[in-house]
């Protein structure tokens, strides 16, 4: 079992002929993901790598190839429209990898997607992987393995680091979700925690947060109130100075809120096992399985 993506995922890649889109489409196909279509306006009728049919629009990809999920690799300035297009085509899972998407664009796209009953992951995220089943996005497949741990994270390479440590220690994953580091994202920690709690194959959850905002504090309250499965947590940015944006648009301590100590205290209060460093994930997770 897994959350959000599995063997039944039929993926359309928006921007399949671009530099990033083509590279990662090959990686996703090699991993075993069912990529049923690509979209590049003007290249409809062609095939990607002589196999995957390319369409001019997402609507055609849904109607003719039966796509039920989309992944977006288009340049940032076109990303919001790509999200609208996928939602209009009736796609229920939209994963936006593109980074640098203006936040005001997302304030318009997000409520639209929600009203259409679709799930958006990202933008500015590494996507998801259900090891052994499907990969949607850019998480390297070789560092993951099937197993009982659910992983949700705001980061990219830090997720890889934690997953790598888990896999090396023999702790595989049901699904790893990179929700993205932007201030406005489609799927948040709570959405993932809820899904992991409901997934019978997931026995423990690792949650990787960072400074900025209150998403982790809200997630901690959710864990305390609603979750029976053990949760292990990490907060990046314990040494970050206030008022400076640490790379991610969302990673900024404003005033006295959004600090690492504040978030770690919220985790502890909710009974979440707090990692002091990434390597702690192995011991804290193993002892709770």
């Amino acid at each position, binding site marked *: 079992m897994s959350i959000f993506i599995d063997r039944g995922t039929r993926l359309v890649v928006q921007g399949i002929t671009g530099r*990033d889109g083509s590279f990662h489409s090959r990686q996703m196909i090699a991993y075993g993901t069912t990529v049923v279509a690509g979209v590049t306006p003007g290249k409809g009728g062609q095939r990607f790598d002589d196999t995957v049919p390319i369409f001019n629009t997402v609507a055609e990809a849904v109607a003719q190839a039966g796509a039920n999920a989309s992944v977006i690799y288009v340049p*940032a300035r076109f990303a919001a429209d790509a999200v609208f297009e996928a939602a209009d085509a009736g796609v229920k899972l939209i994963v936006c990898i593109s*980074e*640098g*998407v*203006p*936040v*005001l664009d*997302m*304030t*318009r796209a997000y*409520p*639209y997607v929600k009203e259409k009953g679709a799930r958006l992951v990202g933008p500015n995220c*590494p996507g998801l992987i259900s090891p052994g089943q499907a990969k949607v996005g*850019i*998480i*390297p497949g070789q*560092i993951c393995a099937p197993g009982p741990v659910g992983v949700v*994270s*705001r*980061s*990219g*390479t*830090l*997720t*890889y*680091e934690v997953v*790598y440590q888990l896999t090396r220690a023999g702790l595989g994953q049901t699904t790893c979700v990179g929700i993205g*580091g932007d*201030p*406005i994202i489609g799927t948040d920690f709570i959405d993932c925690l809820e899904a992991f709690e409901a997934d019978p194959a997931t026995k423990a959850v690792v949650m*990787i947060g*960072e*400074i900025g*905002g*209150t*998403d982790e504090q*809200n997630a901690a309250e959710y864990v305390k109130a609603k979750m029976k499965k053990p949760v292990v947590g*990490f907060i*990046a*940015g*314990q*040494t*970050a*100075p206030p008022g*400076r944006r*640490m*790379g*991610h*648009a*969302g*990673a900024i301590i*404003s*005033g*006295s809120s959004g600090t*690492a100590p504040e978030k770690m205290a919220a985790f502890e209060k909710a009974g979440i096992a707090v990692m*002091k*460093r*990434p*390597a702690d994930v192995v011991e804290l997770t193993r002892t709770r399985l």
Partner: protein
Amino acid sequence: MNLHEYQARELLRRAGIPVSSGDVATTPKEAKAVAERLGGRVVVKAQVHAGGRGKAGGVKLADTPEQAEKVAGQILGMRIKGLTVQKVLVAPAAEIASESYVGVIVDRASQSPVFMVSPAGGIDIEEVAAKTPEQIFRARVDARYGLLPHQALGLAFALFADVNLARQTADILQKLYRAFVDAGASLAEINPLVTTPNGGVIALDSKIVVDDNELERRSAIAALRDVSAENPAEVQAREANLTYIKLDGNVGCVVNGAGLAMATMDLVKYYGGEPANFLDIGGSSNPDKVVTALQIITADPNVHAILFNIFGGITRCDDVANGIVTATRRFKVGRPIVIRLTGTNEKEAVEILRGVGMAALTDMDEAVKQAVALAKGGKAA
């Protein structure tokens, strides 16, 4: 990107919001000329990207043009929170009947723009939020429709019972929202918004923060960037598409990815060291970026050891290794380098480094421990 007060005022003025007259000056003489033109009492304000200007002595009143020249001389060149003041705004000292706060931000929690207004103006809104939260009134904006007229009026009545003042304020809020959207801002605030003794409402001070992701499609806004008001190393990094933030420690860090970069700094601290910087080389593979990263880090005299922590995904480890080798050929690094590489093309990277007598580790904790020990002048474990 932060705009200066004088730039934010200009955007508000163009949006039709009443702002006091006034002009920017870079020398005491210019300040005097502006004060002469305005006539009467003026306020001279440091234009610098730091809060707490008033407390730092960066805002002063002057009764005459000569006095304006004198206080401008005191403020120009002053350092506030590590930044040198290069410009001052000279504006008439307004007669104030009341001070309010009005602002709009992109709010993470409600995933939309949110207006906040408060009758407790003139001071830091976060302080108001912490001490007297009942003094803040909010309205969530659906970005697809913008600030609705009834929302604007509702907020305005929260500030003023007088219908004349409320209508003027509602008009200002609508225009502020338009300026916020047109600038691609993540924050636009007027603090204080003042009422004058004759019943007018004007914006006295304002702050606009632009979403960096908007700059590509808004060249006029991008042109407002004042490079002279920023840390030169951070400017150099941005031009190379790196994110660099200088800190006070002695372990220089080069990492791919913001989350891993923060976690690496934290681990340096965990093992008893102090990070000298945050540096994210980003996702793409480009040896030149690594060279620039090493240039920036070696220019910091506090750095005693340099730590690379690369988890290859999109970033290829061999590209990073090539960058390190190129940099060490081009200039003297002069500090020990500890390299941790794992992931895409790790084997090739190890070969490249071995060719020049360098070694690479695969474990993050081990690499951090060695870098901390070297920075302290001890021997690598």
